[in-house]
């Protein structure tokens, strides 16, 4: 019995040790939820509230999970918002030309992956800083969309209720399908990051670049794949985004940039590379979503929203910092 208990305690402490960053984020989320529940229990016990949150949460989760790979590799991608736009445009262009919407999704994925690939090539082969080059890429793509669409949006209202629509953002037994996609993407990301050679090598690359080269890791390929992964994630999000809004507009995805990055950092992935947590990003995305919908639902003026974003981000980062010092 005693032995069993000791085993339990050591395995629990190991679990905490391994996941301490994600757990800090979970703590922040819990405290926030409790505060919201106390302030306005009617709203926060109402399932409708969560329905509203789930509408956008899936997109934050998908992008924040994918970003972990790039950030852990020691790089940053600031172009994913524009990739969301480009992939969304690809989808509506395919629809307009009368092809199957599923084909449109395929094209969107290819475009997303391709831009990620170009990002990776510019950064790894030309040796240009990702901070700078993805800003450039972001403007370039957004500019292309504005030029190509002449600034006009395209409605896709007619898709609502079709099997295609239901496959991406409908609901199954009352559960939102877009969240199932997010769940699938998280499972894939966790498998890749925690159990696959890709995650192992990308962590080493972000941790010690020189030594990764000396140990024969193909750094350029690994980093490029991380950007491709973000590109694919952006394309999936583009599909959800366009269907949720029932319209494609040229600025699609613009608002995602800071929110998703905030989710990653609140979630406990540090900015210096080498370590990160997918689950943390998922929790970070939840925190962001709850603030997003919660502030207004709690009866606080929307004018306070950004202030609370800032407050929670800073508090969470201080929490992670204190947590570091203890180990």
């Amino acid at each position, binding site marked *: 019995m005693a032995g069993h208990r000791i085993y339990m305690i050591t395995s629990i402490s190991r679990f905490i040790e391994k996941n301490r960053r994600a757990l800090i984020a979970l703590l922040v989320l819990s405290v926030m939820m409790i505060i919201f529940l106390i302030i306005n229990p009617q709203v926060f016990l109402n399932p409708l509230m969560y329905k509203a949150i789930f509408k956008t949460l899936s997109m934050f989760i998908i992008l924040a999970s994918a970003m972990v790979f790039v950030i852990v590799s020691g790089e940053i991608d600031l172009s994913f918002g524009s990739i969301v736009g480009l992939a969304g445009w690809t989808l509506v262009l395919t629809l307009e030309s009368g092809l199957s919407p599923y084909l449109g999704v395929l094209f969107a994925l290819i475009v997303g992956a391709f831009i990620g690939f170009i990002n990776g090539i510019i950064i790894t082969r030309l040796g240009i800083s990702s901070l700078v080059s993805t800003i450039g890429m972001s403007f370039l793509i957004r500019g292309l969309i504005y030029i190509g669409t002449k600034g006009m949006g395209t409605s896709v209202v007619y898709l609502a209720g079709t099997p295609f629509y239901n496959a991406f953002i409908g609901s199954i037994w009352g559960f939102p399908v877009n969240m199932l996609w997010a769940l699938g993407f998280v499972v894939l990301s966790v*498998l890749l990051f925690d*159990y*696959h*050679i*890709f995650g*192992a*090598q990308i*962590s*080493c690359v972000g*941790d*010690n670049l*020189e*030594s*990764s*080269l*000396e*140990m*024969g*890791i193909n750094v350029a390929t690994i980093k490029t794949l991380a950007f491709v992964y973000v590109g694919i994630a952006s394309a999936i999000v583009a599909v959800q985004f366009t269907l949720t809004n029932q319209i494609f507009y040229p600025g699609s995805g613009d608002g995602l940039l800071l929110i998703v990055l905030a989710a990653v950092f609140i979630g406990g992935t540090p900015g210096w590379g*080498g*370590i990160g947590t997918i689950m943390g990003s998922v929790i970070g995305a939840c925190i962001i979503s709850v603030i997003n919908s919660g502030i207004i639902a709690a009866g606080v003026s929307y004018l306070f929203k950004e202030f609370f974003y800032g407050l929670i981000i800073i508090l969470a980062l201080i929490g992670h910092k204190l947590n570091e010092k203890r180990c």
Partner: protein
Amino acid sequence: MKNKFLELKNISKSFGKVSALERVNFYIKGEPEIVGLIGDNGAGKSTLIKIISGIHTPDCGEIYINGKRMENWSVVKSRASGVETVYQDRALAMQQTLARNIFMGRELTSIFGFVKSKLQFAEADRLMRTIGFTSKVFASDSAVVNLSGGERQGVAIARALYFKANLMILDEPTTALSLTEAQKIFDFIRQARKGGSSCIFITHNIYHAYDVSDRCVVLDRGKIVMETDREHTTVEQLVKDMQKIAQNNGKVREGINNARS
């Protein structure tokens, strides 16, 4: 007589205006041997071994493995030939686990590329024990940053051990270590030779080099200035010879200074 395992002929390397190596000839015998590579800071020792391990490309010169001329020598080819290098800067990814570091770049994977973590942890544990690190403080899933200097060196050596190197290169492995930890490394090098691995052991401590090496090679300002078998010299003689080299160095410097003024 077996072929030499490794032979470098007329290797030169400069970094901009700095000439790090000039027409260096160097070899490792076919049968296991321990070679001490001695020289002052900046003599070119690290540059020489980085050429052997394929990190630097020499400006000119040839590289032979088992008598065969190697073209486009690289990190990958070097490793494929069984050269394992433990770099001076220890080349560890500090935030990663001990096991992940040992298998870095050569993860043990199953189908679809999933890492066999349990196997890696078990092997890491076994390797660290073999080398003589049996600390209860660390486990193979603790981050390298929590380990002592000797243990970190052990991680790097465990790599060489696991992948059964033909030639193991240790760049100043004992510089940052305590005496007992250094002794462990020496024991390990001797043990590895018995197991069939040769070793290049870099140090600027002549006593360390003499203690463990079969052969000592002295590098001075990019040139090999002395080479001696342990059997044919004493440590006292070696120290004297090194002093002479240092004096020559001084004279040259004086000369340079005189010429300048």
